[in-house]
């Protein structure tokens, strides 16, 4: 796929791109290429840690709007140059790495907040806006986006849309795909389209949902209307300790038939004894669960009563509000270097999702498979996004010390094997290839195993929209 070009042709293409986006927004400097070659994907980090250069784009372009994106894509299509879209680089799946070189299209100049509409309850912004900045804009008018992932401060709106991200208050307010009203998308051929202004309709399939999660393989989302919400009158927390996770699943399933809390997070015994002990201070054996409920004060009172009654039925020990409040305060602390796993450790989050009848079974099957195949690996997990019908498991493996190969290719090989084992086990027991980090290049090979013949639907759309295959090649299994 790598486009081999001579110096003359390269210079010609560069001038065309400079004409499209402005010379100052077009770079071939080493620092720009290096910076856009390492994202949050463990393999890219390991590669750089070992002193190796990851695959780099030939040219980094930073368009200001859809019109400029359109020009870039027309040029790329003509010369059949790969185009990889980059938001802020916080993705864990290698989705933004320009594995075939070509063009990196960085969206961050498209960061304008066009409208804060308190009547329609949305913010219209360029998808290069850092999500925290639109949260600030919402806060200035007394509203909130209610999308609070750990990467809130370091990911763009487009980045979250590209891989179907999720935040910690998802049970009440939804995932990013629930939060979009309308989008502007530039197709690979340069056409600029808009999706319907109402996300719920009967005018055929939902165009938004075709592009959300497409990871830059079908087009580039350049503008979005993102929902905002009233700030809750009251937000309360309650920590619980379950003796085992089975009780927690039963209690949570029952609770969710009655009302929707905002935060629900259940930690397995291993994670309760490690991360929760370290950051929140719970020094007890068992499975810690934190629940938050919020909204109109009178409703919160009722919800609290229902929560306590329901969880008591399943033997949950009420730990009061202190741990939950501490967790809320520290919810992003978990992810700072020094608190979070980091190189030289090898680690990964193999999040998956399934209905209640399967999710606990998946947890045990993945734990057994990883611990059996890779006895050097530690397995910890929490369940952090819950629905009326099921929940997701955020399961992680950690390999440390001399068990992590220093040779980069050997390290890559081990990393791939652990992932393949874990995700195959999840799929075999009814899970999905990923819950909210996306697919990228990390899991592309498992998409066909997940979807079987259904994969041809994605392939058909890809072929029609991107016949030259220039858009983010080798991502999403496309």
């Amino acid at each position, binding site marked *: 796929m790598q486009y081999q070009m001579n110096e003359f042709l390269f210079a010609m293409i560069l001038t065309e791109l400079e004409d499209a986006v402005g010379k100052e927004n077009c770079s071939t400097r080493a620092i720009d290429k290096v910076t856009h070659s390492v994202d949050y994907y463990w393999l890219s980090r390991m590669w750089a840690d070992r002193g190796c250069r990851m695959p780099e784009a030939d040219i980094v372009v930073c368009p200001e709007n859809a019109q400029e994106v359109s020009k870039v894509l027309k040029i790329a299509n003509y010369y059949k140059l790969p185009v990889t879209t980059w938001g802020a680089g916080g993705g864990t799946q290698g989705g933004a790495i320009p594995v075939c070189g070509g063009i990196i299209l960085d969206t961050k100049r498209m960061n304008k907040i066009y409208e804060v509409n308190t009547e329609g309850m949305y913010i219209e912004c360029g998808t290069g806006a*850092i999500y925290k900045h639109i949260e600030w804009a919402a806060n200035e008018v007394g509203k909130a986006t209610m999308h609070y992932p750990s990467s809130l401060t370091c990911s763009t709106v487009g980045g979250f849309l590209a891989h179907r991200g999720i935040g910690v208050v998802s049970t009440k307010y939804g995932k990013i795909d629930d939060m979009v009203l309308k989008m502007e998308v530039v197709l690979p051929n340069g056409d600029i389209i808009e999706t319907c202004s109402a996300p719920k309709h009967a005018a055929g399939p939902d165009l938004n949902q075709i592009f959300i999660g497409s990871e830059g393989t079908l087009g580039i989302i350049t503008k979005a209307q993102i929902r905002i919400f009233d700030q809750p009158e009251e937000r309360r927390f309650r920590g619980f300790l379950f003796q085992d996770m089975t009780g927690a699943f039963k209690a949570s399933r029952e609770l969710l038939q009655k009302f929707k809390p905002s935060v629900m997070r259940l930690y397995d015994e291993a994670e309760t004894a490690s991360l929760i002990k370290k950051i929140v201070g719970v020094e007890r054996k068992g499975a810690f669960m934190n629940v938050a409920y919020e909204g109109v004060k009178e409703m919160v009172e009722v919800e609290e009563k229902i929560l306590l009654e329901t969880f008591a039925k399943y033997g949950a020990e009420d730990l009061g509000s202190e741990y939950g409040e501490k967790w809320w305060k520290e919810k992003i602390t978990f992810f700072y270097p020094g608190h979070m796993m980091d190189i030289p450790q090898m680690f990964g989050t193999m999040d998956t999702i399934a209905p209640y009848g399967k999710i606990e079974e998946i947890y045990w099957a993945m734990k057994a498979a990883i611990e059996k195949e890779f006895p050097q690996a530690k397995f910890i997990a929490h369940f952090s996004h819950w629905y009326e019908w099921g929940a997701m498991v955020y399961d992680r493996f950690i390999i440390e010390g001399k068990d992590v190969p220093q040779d980069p290719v050997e390290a890559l090989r081990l990393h791939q094997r652990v992932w393949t084992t874990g995700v195959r086990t999840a799929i075999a027991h009814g899970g999905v290839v990923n819950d909210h980090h996306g697919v990228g290049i990390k899991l592309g090979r498992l998409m066909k195993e997940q979807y079987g013949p259904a994969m041809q639907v994605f392939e058909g759309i890809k072929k029609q929209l991107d016949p030259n295959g220039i858009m983010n090649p080798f991502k999403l299994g496309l």
Partner: protein
Amino acid sequence: MIMSEKGKQHVDSCRFCWMCHHICPVGNATGQERNTARARALGISLVNREAIELSEIMDNIFECACCGACVKECVTGWDPVMFTKETRLQAAMEGKLPEYINVLVDNCIEKGNAYGITEIDAALKEKIAAHKEKTDLVLFLGVDAIYKAPASAVNAIKVLEKAGVSFTVLEKEPASGAQLEYLISAANETKEQMAACAKELNGFKTVVVYDPQDAKVLKREYKEWDIALTAEVKTFTAYLADLVKSGALKAENSGKKVVFQDPFQLARDLSETEEAREVVKAYAVLDEMLCNKKDTMWAGNILMAEWMPEVMNRVAEDRMNNARGVNADTIVTASVSEYTALKAVEKDVKVISIEELILG
């Protein structure tokens, strides 16, 4: 590249962390991925691993304002400013500074200011001459005010005159070393300049420092680097607050709604956020904009405009938007550098210095 173990530890912690991405005023203004603490750390870590040349990252190393917003944001305590400055020092020692920085450094050493200016504005010269007599208190104007913003320097003098203060202004004010500290950090040349300045200032009992950048080095780096400064150092804003409190400055509140732009050197480096507010509240109605006090967002400066003027305008424009966000019609500054940067993009929101607020 030779780097301290501490520097390497911070670099290797920041190179794969994105958490302060939203807070970098330069990154927000340019939208460039390289203008982040993690990109800078990644570049340095690759230099340390001999995967990239130091010269290939140096432009980016000088795109950092060293405002410390990322340092403030980091809950673990990693310090991108520390390793950025260490890299500048190392590049200076290895002769790998970009040419446009070399020129500024040479000017600092030879002419005492990065701009290479030797003539002082006539009106300012006259004002300085009026205060050449030795007193206990010296008003230290700083090179930005003297050579790039003489009208601001004149206003600073006028404010002290209005309060009836007896003070001295040096006709040949030495450089504090703040510019060299920013450009090449703890190099011998920086320390020599600081020592010469300290020697001059030690002839006074009190030094009132007009420019927060100078105040930061006089109060912080001088101590850290054992530069013997015995005179008491006061920031201009803290001194003004004393004058308002004592009644030497007779304030009349105009009722005008204003916001205050905290200079990061005062708010973060010197933990001074309330003194300027006391002054502003005496003359106007103070509102707060997004990112205030220790969370302040830098609004640009004079020195970096030498090599990235367009970016300075965008940085200032972003800060103006924060003022607009709370419907402020005036933004009050306490840094000659930020005043100049904001003034360059002044439109619907009026920009005034704290001196102008007092002088009316």
